[in-house]
C-alpha cells in the first residue's frame, strides 16, 4: 500500500565540523499538498533540502519517497526519483531561449539533430497545464524575473518532477508576481504534484500551505496544520521562546545619544524601498536591539550605517558628526566596531594570516605604521589580542580559514573591540557558535555596555535580544513599526509585531 506521504525524512543528522546543521530532523510531506518549511537563516532548511536533493549526504537518517526507502547520491539521482528543485538564484543561461534552457542537459534529438520543435511543443503543453502562457522562443535575458522563475519550475516539471522544492521563491518577486506564483502552486497541487515551499514570510505560509514545519537551530520544532496555527505562533517558534529573564544585567544609566538616525530611506538595486523612514537613537551604555524576521531591512540598515550603501534620504550622526553617505573608512575612522553576520564576506580574509587579519582597519594607525609597517609591534599586539580573547589555536601565521567559526568570531571581536571607540554594531553575533562561545560573546558585549559604549544589536534570536537589549525596535518591511524598553515585554506582542501587526491597529493589511 502506498503511503499517504510523498516524502518522509526520518532522523536526519548532518554535522559540518563542529557545527550541527541538522539534528535528528523529522519531516513528512503529504502527497498533493503545499508544505511550508520555515525557520531563520541557519536553522537548517537548506541543509535539509540539499540532503533531499542529493547535494549533501546525511550523517544519519533515512529518506522515504512514497513509502519506499531511497538513497539520493547526487542531484541526477534526485531527478530520476522525480524530485525537482528551483533554486533561489536561477540557473538559466541568459542568452538562450526559454526552450533552449528547458532542454539543457536532456536534449531531445532526431537522429543526431536537436529537435527544438518537439521541445517547444512540450513547453506549450506544460505551460497550458500550469495555467499560464510562455513563449518558448523568448530569450531569458528579455524575460522578467517572474517569468524566469516559471521557466525554472517548468524545467523541473519537464524533467518529470512530482515533488518540487521551491527555495525562497518569493524573495525575488513583486507582490503581484508572488500572487501569480501561488496560483501556479495551487494548480500544480490540484494535478497531484507535491510542493515544499521554503520561506521566511509567514503571511505567505498562511496563504498557500496546508501544513508547515518549523526548524530552529537544526532541529524540528513543530509540524502543524495551517488551521491550527497563526503567524504569531510561527514567529515565536522560529526565534525560540523567552527563557532568560531580563535580570541578568547590571543596570547602567545611559548617557548622551551617540548614534542618531533620522528619517532614513534606502532602496535596493531594483528601486524598491528597503528602509522606510528609520529613526532611532543609541545612547552611551545602551544596547538597542533591532528585532524582526530576517530580510525585513536589517541588512540594509547595517550597510547604510557602515557606509557600505548610500541612503536615499535621511541623516546619520555618530558622535556628533554627520556621516550620512560617507564611505566605510570614514565611518570606521570614527571608531565604529562592526561584527558582521557573514564573517568571510565582511570581516575575515580567509587566505590572509591571522596577524594580517588583525591589522585590518589599523594599517594607518601610527602605533603600527611609521616608515613602513612595524611588523614586530603588530605581531606583539596581535598576539596579545589573540590571547586576551582566547582564540584557539593562538597562532598568528596560520591562514584565517583554518580557524573554527567560534574562534574566527573571537578574533573578529578582539579586533573590532580594539578598534571601536564608542560604537559597536553587532549582527547575529552568536550565529552558528557553540554555547561556550555564545556566552563569551554576550559577556563581552555587556562588558562594553558597562564601559559606556553605544551598541546596536541586530539579531533574529529572540532569546539573545531579550537577554541583551535595553531597547528593542522591531523592523518589518523596512520600517521600525514599534520600539519600546525591554521590560515586561510580552511574547505575544513580540510575535505579532514581527509578523507585521502594529500595536493598536491589529487588522492592518500589508502593503
Amino acid at each position, binding site marked *: 500500500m502506498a503511503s499517504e506521504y510523498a516524502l518522509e525524512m526520518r532522523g536526519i543528522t548532518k554535522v559540518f565540523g563542529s557545527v550541527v546543521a541538522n539534528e535528528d530532523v523529522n519531516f513528512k510531506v503529504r502527497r498533493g499538498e503545499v508544505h511550508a518549511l520555515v525557520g531563520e537563516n541557519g536553522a537548517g532548511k537548506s541543509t535539509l533540502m540539499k540532503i533531499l536533493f542529493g547535494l549533501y549526504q546525511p550523517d544519519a537518517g533515512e529518506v522515504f519517497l512514497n513509502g519506499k526507502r531511497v538513497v539520493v547520491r547526487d542531484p541526477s539521482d534526485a531527478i530520476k526519483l522525480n524530485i525537482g528543485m528551483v533554486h533561489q538564484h536561477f540557473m538559466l543561461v541568459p542568452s538562450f531561449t526559454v526552450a533552449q534552457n528547458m532542454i539543457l542537459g536532456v536534449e531531445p534529438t532526431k537522429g543526431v539533430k536537436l529537435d527544438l520543435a518537439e521541445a517547444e511543443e512540450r513547453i506549450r503543453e506544460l505551460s497550458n497545464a500550469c495555467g499560464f502562457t510562455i513563449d518558448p522562443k523568448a530569450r531569458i535575458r528579455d524575460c522578467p524575473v517572474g517569468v524566469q522563475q516559471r521557466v525554472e519550475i517548468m524545467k523541473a516539471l519537464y524533467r518529470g518532477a512530482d515533488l518540487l522544492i521551491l527555495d525562497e521563491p518569493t524573495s525575488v518577486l513583486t507582490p503581484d508576481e508572488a500572487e501569480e506564483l501561488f496560483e501556479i502552486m495551487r494548480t500544480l497541487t490540484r494535478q497531484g504534484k507535491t510542493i515544499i515551499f521554503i520561506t521566511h514570510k509567514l503571511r505567505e505560509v498562511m496563504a498557500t500551505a496546508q501544513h508547515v514545519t518549523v526548524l530552529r537551530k537544526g532541529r524540528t520544532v513543530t509540524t502543524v496544520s495551517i488551521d491550527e496555527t497563526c503567524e504569531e505562533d510561527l514567529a515565536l517558534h522560529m526565534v525560540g521562546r523567552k527563557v532568560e529573564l531580563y535580570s541578568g544585567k547590571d543596570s547602567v544609566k545611559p548617557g548622551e545619544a551617540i548614534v542618531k538616525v533620522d528619517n532614513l530611506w534606502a532602496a535596493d538595486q531594483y528601486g524598491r524601498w528597503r528602509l522606510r523612514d528609520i529613526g532611532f537613537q543609541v545612547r552611551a551604555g545602551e544596547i538597542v536591539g533591532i528585532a524582526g524576521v530576517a530580510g525585513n531591512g536589517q541588512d540594509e540598515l547595517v550597510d547604510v550605517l*557602515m557606509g*557600505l550603501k548610500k541612503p536615499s534620504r535621511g541623516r546619520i550622526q555618530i558622535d556628533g558628526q554627520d556621516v550620512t553617505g560617507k*564611505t*566605510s*573608512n570614514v*565611518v*570606521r*575612522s570614527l571608531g565604529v566596531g*562592526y561584527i*558582521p553576520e557573514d564573517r*568571510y*564576506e*565582511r*570581516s*575575515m*580574509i*580567509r*587566505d*590572509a594570516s591571522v596577524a*594580517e587579519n588583525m*591589522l*585590518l*582597519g589599523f*594599517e*594607518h594607525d601610527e602605533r603600527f*605604521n611609521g616608515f*613602513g*609597517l612595524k*611588523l614586530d609591534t603588530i605581531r606583539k599586539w596581535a598576539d596579545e589580542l589573540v590571547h586576551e580573547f582566547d582564540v584557539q589555536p593562538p597562532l598568528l*601565521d596560520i591562514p584565517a580559514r583554518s580557524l573554527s567559526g567560534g574562534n574566527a568570531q573571537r578574533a573578529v571581536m578582539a579586533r573590532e573591540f580594539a578598534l571601536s571607540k564608542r560604537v559597536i554594531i553587532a549582527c547575529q553575533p552568536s550565529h552558528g557558535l557553540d554555547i561556550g562561545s555564545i556566552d563569551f560573546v554576550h559577556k563581552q558585549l555587556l562588558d562594553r555596555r558597562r564601559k559606556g559604549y553605544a551598541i546596536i544589536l541586530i539579531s533574529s534570536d529572540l532569546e539573545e535580544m531579550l537577554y541583551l537589549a535595553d531597547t528593542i525596535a522591531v523592523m518589518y518591511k523596512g520600517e521600525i513599526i514599534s520600539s519600546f524598553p525591554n521590560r515586561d515585554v510580552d511574547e505575544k506582542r513580540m510575535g505579532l509585531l514581527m509578523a507585521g501587526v502594529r500595536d493598536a491597529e491589529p487588522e492592518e493589511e500589508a502593503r
Partner: protein
Amino acid sequence: MTQQDNVWRRIAAGIGRPLLAIALALLIGLVIISIAGEDPIESYRALIGGAFVGRSNIENTLVRSIPVIASGLAVAVAFACGMFNMGVEGQLYLGAFAAAWIGFSIKGVPPLLHVLLAIGLSAAVGAAWAYLPAIARIKWGTSEIVTTMMLNYVAQYFTSYLVSFPFKEPGDLQQTPAIFSSAELYELSAASRLHLGLLLVVVFAVIIAFLLKRTALGYEIRMTGLSPSVSRASGISTDRTAIRAMLISGAIGGIAGAIEILGVHHRFINNFSPGYGWDGLAVSLLAKGNPIGILLSGIFYGGLQSGANIMEFATDVPKQLIDSLRAIIILFVAADFTGLKLLRAKPKLPRGGGKSGCKEVKTCGRSV
C-alpha cells in the same frame, strides 16, 4: 618548531611547484628532442652552458633578463591587488619612446639628471596608460584583462607611427636619432653591453617587496586582492587601492622600456621588444608574484633565451623548441594557479570573472 623552520618550509613550499613545472617541461623537451633524433643530453648541455657558464654567456643572460624582470615586477604589483595588467608590453613601448625622446631631444643636461628625467617621464607615461583601463574597470566594470591587452596594440602602433614619421632619423631604418651620452645608463661590460639597469631592477625588486610586505599601501593592495568585500567593509577604499596598484604597475612597465632603451639600444627602434612584457607575465606567474622570486625566474627566462641561441648553434635543435618549453612551464604553473582559484571561487562565482581571468593568463603563457 622555531620561527626559522617555518620560514624555510614556506620557501621550500613556494619554490617547489615552479621547480616541478620546470623539471616536467625539461622532461617533455627531452622526449621531443629524442624523437627528433637529436641527442638530448648534448642539447641541454649546450643550452645550460650557453646560458650560465662563462662570463660572456652569463652577461648575455643578464642583459636579456633585465627588461623581463622589470616587466615581471609590474605584473606582480597589479596581480597582488587582483588586477590583471596584461598591458605591460604597451606600457613598455610608450615608456621606451618617452625615455628615448628625453634622451635625444634635450641637450646639455647633467648625466644623472638626464637619466632620471627619462625614467621619470617613462614612468608617468606608463602609469597614465595603465590608468585608462583601471578607471574603466572601476567606473564601468570593464574587464581590465581585455582593455589592457587591446591597448597594447594601440601603444605599439602609436610608437611605430612616431618612429616612422615625426621622429624618424633620416635613413632607411625605422629608428629615432641616438640619445645623448648623458642619458645612457652606465655600461658595466662593453662586450655584452651589460648595463646599470641590472642594479636598477634589483633595487626595484627590493622596493616592490618592501612596498607589498612592509607598507600600509602594500598591505591594502594585498588584502584587496585577497578579498575586496572584506577589505571594503574594513574601511579600505578598494577602488582607490586598485587604481594605485595599476598606476604603480604601469609606471614600472614604462620604466622597463626606459631601461632597455637607455641601457642597450640608445635610441628607440621600431618593434624593438620581442615580447618582454609577455615574458614578464610569465616570470611573475612562475614566481607567484614574489619580487625576489621574479629576479630568479627572470634570470632563468633570460638564460633560456640566450642559451637557446647557443644550443641552436651547437646542435641541430632549433631554438623554437625552447619557446615551447617556456610555454609548457607556464602551462604547468598556471594550471596549478587556476585549479586553486576555481576551487575557491566555486561556491560563489560558477561563471565569474576569476575563472576567465585565469584562462587569459594561460593563453598568454602559451603565446609567449
